């Protein structure tokens, strides 16, 4: 019997190695796998490359992981935001590499990794400083830049529902980056609010089929998340 549901966050994160590229889902607090990120802090892997929309805020979660010196590089679209002081301090001190990627290109690069597309052309960023060092090519009379796929070793995602085959649904804008990150990583770990019996998620409405999910852990968050 296939059973991707594991009993603890430690088990869900076992085997993540130093030097891994970790994709972290979420946009703002919605769909952010907070418990898995805290678990990664416990787990101990270091020298990480983290791909996320933002570069952490406050002194918890990703910001804490960075503050502990465990993150070598951040790939994100929006590093500076309210409370991103840890990022700013480390970055100014030269202790953190940064790759800025336009938000849509970031999503598409991960979708491409998941879909076996090694590179694609996009008009986004053409003629800007983010095009520096990238191949530029004209299609339909308009300049485009070539972007490479962005695969992960690990993806941490948050789901609303999950079953033992790893099928996932997301809730409202909690979906965001989670489905493309789930596709793009070798090991995809989901924290889910609800565990469903196999077959209880309507087959027409599975958002991430279990083929993209390695492990599921049940995390009941308190109000207002339930």
């Amino acid at each position: 019997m296939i059973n991707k549901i594991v009993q603890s966050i430690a088990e869900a994160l076992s085997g993540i190695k130093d030097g891994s590229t970790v994709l972290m889902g979420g946009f703002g607090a919605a769909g952010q796998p907070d418990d898995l990120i805290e678990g990664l802090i416990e787990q101990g892997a270091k020298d990480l490359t983290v791909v996320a929309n933002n570069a952490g805020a406050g002194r918890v979660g990703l910001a804490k992981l960075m503050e502990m010196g465990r993150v070598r590089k951040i790939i994100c679209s929006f590093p500076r935001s309210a409370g991103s002081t840890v990022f700013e301090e480390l970055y100014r001190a030269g202790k953190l590499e940064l790759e800025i990627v336009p938000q849509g290109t970031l999503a598409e690069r991960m979708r491409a990794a998941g879909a076996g597309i090694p590179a694609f052309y996009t008009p986004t960023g053409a003629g800007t400083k983010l095009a520096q060092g990238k191949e530029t090519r004209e299609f339909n009379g308009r300049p485009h830049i070539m972007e490479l796929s962005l695969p992960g070793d690990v993806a941490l995602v948050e789901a609303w529902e999950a079953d033992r085959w790893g099928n996932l649904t997301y809730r409202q804008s909690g979906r965001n980056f989670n489905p493309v990150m789930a596709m793009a990583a070798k090991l995809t770990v989901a924290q889910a609010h609800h565990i469903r019996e196999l077959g209880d998620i309507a087959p027409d409405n599975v958002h991430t089929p279990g083929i993209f999910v390695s492990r599921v852990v049940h995390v009941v968050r308190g109000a207002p998340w339930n």
Partner: protein
Amino acid sequence: MSSFTRQQMAARVAQDIPEGWFVNLGIGIPTMIADYVPMEREVILHSENGILGMGPAPAPEQATPWLINAGKQPVTLRPGGSFFHHADSFGMIRGGHIDLCVLGAFEVAENGDIANWATSENDSAPAVGGAMDLAAGAKRLWVVMDHTTKDGRPKLVETCGYPLTAHCAVQRIYTNLAVIDVVRGRGFVVREIVPGLSLTELQAKTGATLHTDA
């Protein structure tokens, strides 16, 4: 001399958005535009984080952390709205399905170049977010911004001094002083000026030649 308030600028943009358009509104004054589109005029608001059909902000007790806009503020969903993932969301943008995007800007050049993400070539950690995708991908890009900086320097210029967000992308600019089209091959063409301001006075506050159709 009169000048539009932020609210008046938002309301002025809202006038020009017809029913049925799919519209993405940036952070700041652009977000306020939604408040000036009457609910019975169905304009479908898109948010980068995977929402079509955003409605107004909820009453505080009805806010849910699952439903936020690109500025991470709680919003509501109108009947007919839908959710999707980030790659699909930016596929809508990049694929030219968004009829209109309205953004703020630091500068707009007379060829339609827009600079709105980094304030210096030396800023190595600027936050680009979805600005480049939106500027390059939407069918129409309008900018709403003050006509000049706080210390009086023009924001409508011959050539952007700040790093570009996108090349030749802006079609129209709404400022606190005027509504100005960017016309390929001509440059800035003035459509409206706030009452009491002359074209000469407006020109004095603008870093490139203003044209009129008259």
